[in-house]
């Protein structure tokens, strides 16, 4: 059983069986307040799946990209939950979960094949008039979305030109499906692959202004 946790946009937690069956998925759409809801969501996801912490074998952690204040809450929670249970964390690039959801859906409905492009870009709000985007091309042999360009930031008004250049279809996301995040982790484990970075995908340096020497106060 895998517990999936992601706070890169809203806050969401899921319990998924190792073969990919989603037992529970709960979420809070609030783009802030991650620290408030995370404990309740984990407890609720376990409860709805009728499992106890000791039934969980892995924790899938959404590593972003995402605005940093919220993103960290889920990663911290994933790490300490795993520590508490003595189990490993599987880092997952959060956009992978969205891509897998869309690609599976398109494969089922045939919608994707009818579109001209086989390349798609998952796009999320990165605040400060920027988007975070990751480019994918179909599902690979391991059942994972094939990431052809790593997550990056771009000014909002530059996105469409960039995607046209890449020939990628724009798919905006305002939530991360934590169930699919855990499914990505399950498939990565089955394939023996690492699919997410060990550290948070902030994509931005911290805001700091170096002190400019003592200011004159006058007399």
């Amino acid at each position, binding site marked *: 059983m895998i517990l999936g*946790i992601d*706070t890169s946009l809203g806050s969401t937690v899921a319990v998924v069986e190792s073969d990919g069956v989603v037992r529970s998925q709960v979420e809070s759409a609030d783009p802030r*307040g*991650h*620290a*408030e*809801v*995370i*404990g*309740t969501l*984990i*407890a609720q996801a*376990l409860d709805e799946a009728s499992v*106890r*912490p000791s039934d969980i074998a892995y924790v899938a952690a959404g590593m972003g990209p995402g605005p*940093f*204040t919220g993103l*960290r*809450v*889920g*990663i*911290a*929670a*994933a*790490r*300490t*939950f*795993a*520590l*508490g*249970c003595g189990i490993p964390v599987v880092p997952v690039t959060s956009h992978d979960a969205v891509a897998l959801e869309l690609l599976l859906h398109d494969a089922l409905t045939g919608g994707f094949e009818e579109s001209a492009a086989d390349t798609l870009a998952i796009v999320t709000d990165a605040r400060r008039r920027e988007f975070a985007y990751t480019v994918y091309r179909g599902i690979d042999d391991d059942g994972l979305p094939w990431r052809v360009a790593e997550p990056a930031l771009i000014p909002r008004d530059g996105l469409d030109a960039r995607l046209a250049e890449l020939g990628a279809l724009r798919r905006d996301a305002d939530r991360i499906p934590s169930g699919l995040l855990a499914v990505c982790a399950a498939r990565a484990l089955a394939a023996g692959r690492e699919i997410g970075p060990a*550290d*948070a995908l*902030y994509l931005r340096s*911290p*805001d*700091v*202004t*170096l*002190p400019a020497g*003592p*200011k*004159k*106060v*006058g*007399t």
Partner: protein
Amino acid sequence: MNRAEPLILGIETSCDETGIGIVRGRTLLSNTIASSMDEHARYGGVVPEVAARAHLEALEPAIRAALAEAHVALADLDAVAVTSGPGLAGALMVGVGAAKALAVSLEKPLYAVNHLVGHIAADILDGDAPPLEYPTVALLVSGGHTSLLLVRDLTSDVELLGETMDDAAGEAFDKVARLLGLPYPGGPEIDRAAASGDPDAIRFPRGLSRASDMAAHRYDFSFSGLKTAVARWVEQREAAGEPVPVADVAAGFREAVVDVLVTKALAACRDHEVPRLLLGGGVIANRRLREAALERAAAEGVTVRIPPLSLCTDNGAMIAALAAELVMSGRPPSTLGFGADSTLPVTEIQVAEDVA
């Protein structure tokens, strides 16, 4: 749950120290601290985003180190404790998220507590000291806060008498150090520079100490005017082409800070007829402050308590100690529904207590 001598792990991330503490009742088993201070040095002060990133990286290794030092396993814990506030919001959230997930995974109760009251609880872990007596006045001084409290009971009755209106005392040390060309953190640097200086050579102003201030701000502090006065004094010297006597400036500045802190703390003791003063917070490491407090308190018949310095700076042991007191006094745990509260008032000793 063992309510007689609970084993508690405390998580503290309100500023730049990732603190993990483990206590059994009133016995300290581990006080593990990972500080990001070095990363802030080149900015001359704590950068919130840098601190929060460092917490995320330091948390898990710090928990492992604390468990190893205490020779306990997570499964042995009776409860998990965490700082809910006050502090830097983004930094607090890392600890809150981590503590909640840890508590849920262990199926153990969680106590969300007040950082400032934690500073008082640190004193309880001093095995060599006699038991803490109530009521006591507490003066908490650090880079993040300067507060004067009246503590009638650690777990149920803490009153805010006064606090800083602008900079915290530790911040004032950092800013004055910078304008004297001394590195961060400013406290030890000012101390070093002041060692050879004359504290009476330059008389800097004591903030909020005039008779006209005393009605509304009897126990409040202000250090920004002092900082400006130091800056102006230094500028005038430089403008006149004279050398700046750094040692005298440092000594005079430090004396002004110490004087106002001790004067107001002892006034609180006198006004409330409480002959006990407890000191806490990182700035207590300042030797001149400790000396002045001990000397002047003795003259007024006030007993001063100072926890070991390793427990004065921000740490997780004090958070665990406060939660242990709550457990031992029979208080229920917190629910999971609390957040990081950067301005949590000191009267809220425990947050989200599950009264149902």
